[in-house]
């Protein structure tokens, strides 16, 4: 029965040693170790959460980028189309304007020509009348050198007046 009878000495020393061990380990081992493990687990959790968030953010950004890209492409197409229509319209306008302008110029030129022609004709008429007067003067001078001829003319002229 000695085997199952606890001896007082061993009980005493075990209790003492175990309590000392418990106190020492609690202060110098378990506190720092458990604290460090807990802290590290938390930091790992945090890091994983952050990574998950970053992944989501990344996905969001990617889809956003795609959207932006598509939008940009559409916008570009729009702009190009607009530019094309604008170009066409400008071209047409320019053409029309050019035509109008041309027509105007032609008109002006025609008027000018007409005016010039009129002026020229007037001048010609003037000169022709002067010339004719001169010629008539000369002719009359030669014809009315003598008195008889003058009298005949006057008589003739008077005759005409009478007729009227």
């Amino acid at each position: 029965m000695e085997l199952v009878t606890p001896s007082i000495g061993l009980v005493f020393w075990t209790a003492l040693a175990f309590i000392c061990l418990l106190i020492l380990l609690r202060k110098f081992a378990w506190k720092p170790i458990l604290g460090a493990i807990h802290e590290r687990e938390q930091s790992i959790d945090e890091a994983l959460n952050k990574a998950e968030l970053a992944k989501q953010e990344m996905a969001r950004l990617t889809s956003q980028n795609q959207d932006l890209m598509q939008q940009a492409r559409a916008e570009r197409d729009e702009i190009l189309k607009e530019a094309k229509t604008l170009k066409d319209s400008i071209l047409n306008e320019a053409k029309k304007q050019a035509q109008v302008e041309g027509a105007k110029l032609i008109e002006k030129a025609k008027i000018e020509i007409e005016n010039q022609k009129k002026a020229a004709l007037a001048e010609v008429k003037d000169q022709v009348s002067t010339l004719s007067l001169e010629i008539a003067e000369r002719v009359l001078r030669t014809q009315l050198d003598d008195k008889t001829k003058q009298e005949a003319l006057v008589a003739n002229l008077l005759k005409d007046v009478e007729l009227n």
Partner: protein
Amino acid sequence: MDCNRVFVSKVKRLTIVFTLLIAFLSIKIDTFAQVDSAVVPVDSTVAESAHAASGEHGAEAGHGKEKFEPTKVIMEHIADSHMWHLWGHTSLPLPVILYTPAGLEVFSSAHFYHGEEDYKGTYNTYRLVEDHVKVVGTNGQVDETVSVLDFSITKNVAAMFVAILVILIVFISVAGAYKKRVGKAPKGLQSLIEPIIVFVRDDIAKPNIGHKYAKFMPYLLTVFFFIWFNNLLGLVPIFPGGANVTGNIALTFVMAFGTMIIVNINGNKYYWKHIFRPDVPWWLYPIMIPVELIGIISKPFALMIRLFANITAGHIIVLSLISLIFIFETLAIAPVSVAFVLFMDVLELLVAFLQAFIFTLLTALFIGMAVEEHH
């Protein structure tokens, strides 16, 4: 309490094995018994055999003429001693501390010369009888009337101190590593210890105690590693291991008592209500309350017996297998013995861990039952 029942059945099985072994050995002893079975002091043959039994010099047996007594050798190993046998005839003397009615006595166990001589102390003359210090009266006979309390640093106490030293060195250095490498991955010894600590926390404390586990972690971890390291050191056949520390009822008694104290001072009102006002018809109270009160004692008692029986049985089996060589007095049996001992040692490695685990697990379970909240 399902698992507890499983463990209890395991203990029963081990007890049967243990009993069968003792029976087997006693038959053998009967066969080889000598006429005289008088008290033999720790003489050279027994020391030699004990030495051989610890697995060092198996071949040296048989030079002594005395008959080999396996029970004595084994019991000597299992029990405590006032000196620590190292090798051959060399033992490490340990301090003897006695509390006598007259006063405290401290002297070295070397004065007993392995029990062959008496020592005259300040107050009394002492004699070592079967490794127990007794007071010798004036007539030269052992005087049982004088009661002395033996607080000696025995082999088990010394071995326990060695284990404590190892534990302190290991864990304080590991804690240092945590302080030095804050937030980094564990390295070296740290990475060996950390999974075990996390195992105790996540697989023992958390599922059994619940969210209040943090308060009990230091106790659980200390119990776990104290038992485990002592179990492992007990498996080492040479100094400073080989002592049957966790297989000593005094140590397991202290551990179980600690668990009982922790459980009962942390028991909440539901725990006490369950004991004094259980949910049964009132006329069953005379039966239920004593049963529940016995339950307070029986739970740690089972812990105490379980650890003691398992470790002691392991030591006894290993020593018995080695003893076979000396019982049959032939070297031919040695390979068989050694093979079986190797198998048992490997099994004991598992048992060393398992018993530390079970003790801690059940402690956590009892604490969990005491602090559980009912809604």
